[in-house]
Each structure stands twice: as C-alpha cells, then as structure tokens.
C-alpha cells in the first residue's frame, strides 16, 4: 500500500490514462458543439474562446487579484471558524449542560444555508469585508463544531483507561489521546466546513460589490462576456478541486494509513 506511492504501478498508469482520455473527450465534444454552433456562441462559447479569456484575464491580473482577495477572506474566515468550532465542539462534548443548550443551537444553525446570513451580515456590518467574512465563518463553524464534538465523544473509554494506567495526567490525556483520537472525525468536519465556506464565499461575493472571484463572475455577466463567465467558473472549480485533493486528500490518506479502512 505504501510502496505504490513511490513507484507508479501499471494499474495507476491505466487509471491516469482513463481519466485523461475522459477529459480530452469532453473538451473535444465541447469544441465540436461550439464549432457547429448548436447554440448561439453568446450563450455557449467554444473551449478555445474560454481558454483565450482565461489567458487574457490571467495576464491582466484580474483573476490573480480576485483569487488573492477570495483566498484571503476564506483563510481568515476559516481559521476563525476553526477556533470557534473547536471551542464549541469541545465545550458541548465536555459539558452536559452546554450540550443540552448550545448543542441544540449548533445543530439548528448547521441546517441553515450559510448564504442566508448575508442580509443579516450586511445590516450588522454594512457592505464591508467583515460582513463577507462573517458569512464564510457561519458556513464552516457549525460543521467543525459538530465534528469536534463527535470526535471527542467517540473516544473509546478503553483508550482513556489505557492511557490512565500508563500514567497519563489529565493534561496528557487531552494532549496525547483525546486530540489525536479526534483527527478522523475532524478531517471529515473540516472538509465539509471548507466546502460550505467556499460556497458561501462565492455566493457572497456574487451579491457583493468588491474584488473577488465571485465578483468577477458578476463582472462577466454585466459585460455580457460569456467566455469570461465560463473561464472564472473553471477557476472556481479548479480551486475547489485542488484544495479538496491536495489538502483534504492527504489528510484522509494519513488517517486511512493509521486507522485502516474502518475510518475511511
């Protein structure tokens, strides 16, 4: 299992071939549909035009600026939501009273689509950076809180005992047993939290006038530039997939290696 990462086997080669083949086919079909002009090119552009737009908007810095602004908001919102979510999760896991009271609120708010916080955020914070970060925050905090709570509650009492009989103090128990045992559940929760945060950020930027990827989509629409709209959407997809694969994919592989398939 571990060696397969170093030496690409025949199987991984074939898998890669299948995936590349699929995308080549999709783009070829897209290109064909574009060329035949089944739909108006103002509504359905050819891939060549979309890639050209992508190149222009990368070259003139629009995409990079937007990307930077969006990522900044995302990171700030996500980091705050991690701290908040962990605190809420640990609190509701440790205290029965907190679980009965705050725990219920967390569950309720998690079911609320985070973009619905936007009107409230605008009323509270105005059309500001704070408002949009607030929306991102609300997107991921509750997923992280719920997974932190589940992770801590799911700790087998047997492992607590094992640590105790090996001489763990209360602090050591948290540091060396409770926290690492929470990792599989946290990875799931943080992945879900990230995807909620990303979605609400894009929605928020779309409804908002300021620099950002979501805003660029709106710019494209205002200019009636379908190529640009497609190009920005591709960037948004690429960022989502990259974070998912690179960050969370690795974290999940790390968990799978240790816990085995049971936790995957």
């Amino acid at each position, binding site marked *: 299992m571990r060696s397969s990462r170093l030496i690409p086997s025949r199987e991984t080669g074939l898998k890669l071939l299948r995936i590349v083949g699929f995308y080549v086919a999709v783009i070829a079909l897209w290109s064909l549909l574009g060329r035949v002009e089944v739909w108006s090119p103002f509504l359905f552009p050819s891939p060549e035009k979309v890639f050209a737009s992508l190149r222009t908007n990368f070259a003139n810095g629009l995409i990079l600026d937007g990307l930077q602004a969006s990522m900044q908001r995302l990171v700030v919102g996500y980091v705050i939501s991690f701290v908040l979510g962990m605190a809420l999760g640990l609190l509701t896991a440790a205290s029965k009273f907190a679980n009965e009271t705050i725990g219920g609120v967390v569950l309720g708010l998690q079911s609320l689509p985070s973009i619905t916080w936007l009107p409230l955020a605008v009323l509270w914070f105005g059309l500001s950076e704070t408002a949009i970060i607030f929306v991102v925050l609300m997107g991921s905090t509750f997923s992280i809180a719920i997974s932190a709570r589940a992770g801590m509650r799911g700790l*087998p009492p*047997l*492992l607590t*005992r*094992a*640590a*105790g*009989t*090996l*001489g*763990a*103090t209360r602090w*050591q128990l948290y540091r*060396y*047993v409770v926290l*690492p*045992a929470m*990792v599989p559940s946290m990875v799931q929760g943080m992945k879900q939290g990230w995807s909620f945060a990303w979605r609400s950020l894009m929605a928020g930027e779309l409804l908002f006038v300021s620099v950002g990827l979501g805003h660029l989509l709106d710019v494209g629409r205002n200019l009636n530039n379908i190529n640009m709209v497609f190009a920005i959407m591709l960037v948004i997809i690429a960022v989502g997939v990259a974070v998912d694969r690179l960050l969370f994919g690795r974290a999940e592989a790390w968990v799978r*290696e*240790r*816990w*085995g*398939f*049971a*936790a995957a």
Partner: protein
Amino acid sequence: MALIADTGRQGGGRASAASDPEPLLALRHISKHFRTSRQDTLALDDVTLKVRPREFICIVGPSGCGKSTLLNIAAGIDTDYQGEAVFEGAPIRGMAQQRAVVFQEPALFPWLNVRDNVEFGLKLRGVPKEQRREIVDRQLALVNLSRFDRAYIHELSGGMKQRAQLARGLAVEPHVLLMDEPFAALDAQTRDDLQLELQSVWARIGTTVLFVTHNVREAVILGDRVVVMSPSPGRIKKIIDIPLERPRTPDDHAVADLAAAVRYELQNVGAEPEPRYAI
C-alpha cells in the same frame, strides 16, 4: 496433589512461604454494588486477596462473577467500592504506571505505530529519547515484534496486538501487571504460543502478575496460585496452589490433574443458585 488453601488464610498453603512476606497488593473485604435503575448487583461480596511480590496469580470463575470488577479495583480504574485496596503499603486512589493493565480488547492507540505505542508510557514519564529507544527495542524483542515496530495497529493480527499491549505494559516496568483475559479472543494455537511467551517473559523479569481467564488450563499453566470465584454474589471460593516446575505446557499430566481439580471447584459454584439480583 494440589495444596488447597482456605479463602481466609492465603499463604498458608505454600511450604516455601513459611513466613508470609508483606503483600505487594492487598485487597481486603472488598464489596462492590452496581446500582442501575433496573437492578442492584452485588458484583463482589467481601473479597479478600493478598498478592505477594513476584507472584503469578490467576483468577478463574464463570462469567459475571466479578473478575473484571476486581481487576479494575486493583488497577485503580474503579475507586467506588467498600473495603480496602492497598498497594505497596498505600491505599489505591487511581490509575498509576506501577500497575500496568493488559486489556481483553486490544486497547492500542490507532494513530501511533507499534513502536510509539510501546513508547507511550515512557514518553509520559519523560524518559530521554535514547533510553526510550533502548527499552522499546528490548520489549519488542521480548514479545517477538521487532519486525513490526513501524506497523500500524490495524495491520496487526489479534495475537500481535496482544503482544504489543504486553510490551507496552512491560515497558514502564510496572510493579504488578494486571491482565484481564488477554488471550480470550485468540485461536488455540496462538494462545498456546502466547502462554509460553508470557511464561518466559515472566521468568526473565519476574514481575508480579494478576491474570484473569476463563480458561482453567491456562490458569494452571501460568499461575503460582489459582483463585476460583463463584458468582451471585461474587466471592472467592477457593485458592489452589500450583506447585509445578516451569515452563509448563498444556500436555503435562500434572497440569491436566490440577486443571481437573480447579474444574471440580468450578462445577460446584453453580450448585447452590442464589437470586442474582436483589430488586
């Protein structure tokens, strides 16, 4: 044949133990109730057991007679009971490194590999890195796990997991090793192997062991004394001395004879049924 000691006066049975040394672990008049909304179980009723230094004690008895309860009290996992549990002259107030436990289920940490699991107690204690390495290498060799030191827990077989648990317990050099049916989930062959291994480990390091098992033959193979418990309420019925040479194997005739004697005691434990639960 077996020298049979009375429940009340352990130590008298052994010719060699003329003057009773100070017990390492003394459980005196231990009673334990489990109260739930539905029932009140008397899991232990006035149990007294004294364990001498370097002694290997096996506890057998039917399911539900309070073996695990007694072991948990000795470990300090359970501190809510009547009576007195004293270890090295001081009352037991909670869990401690000197009383290591090998649990029936493999209680290993899945986020650590075998080596880091065995190292765990040493790290908590702040043992320097070089010394930790040395101790862990020695323990892994002792239980035949050296080749698997980098493996994660889910990659081990059941027997290997229990050996890793044993190594982890031994690494902290406990004064007593408490084992609760550590081999119960294993097949007969692995179990025989581990019994031999445990005997040789014990012979080499000579720690004190309190060992719970359902398996009478296992108890006779491993123990200096076998404690037979009876259920409802949990009591010590007999303590049987096993004055046999070591290492012992399951095929020894003397082992079979003593196992029969223990089994005889066990058969009678169910003879006078009492109501199990007071409602």
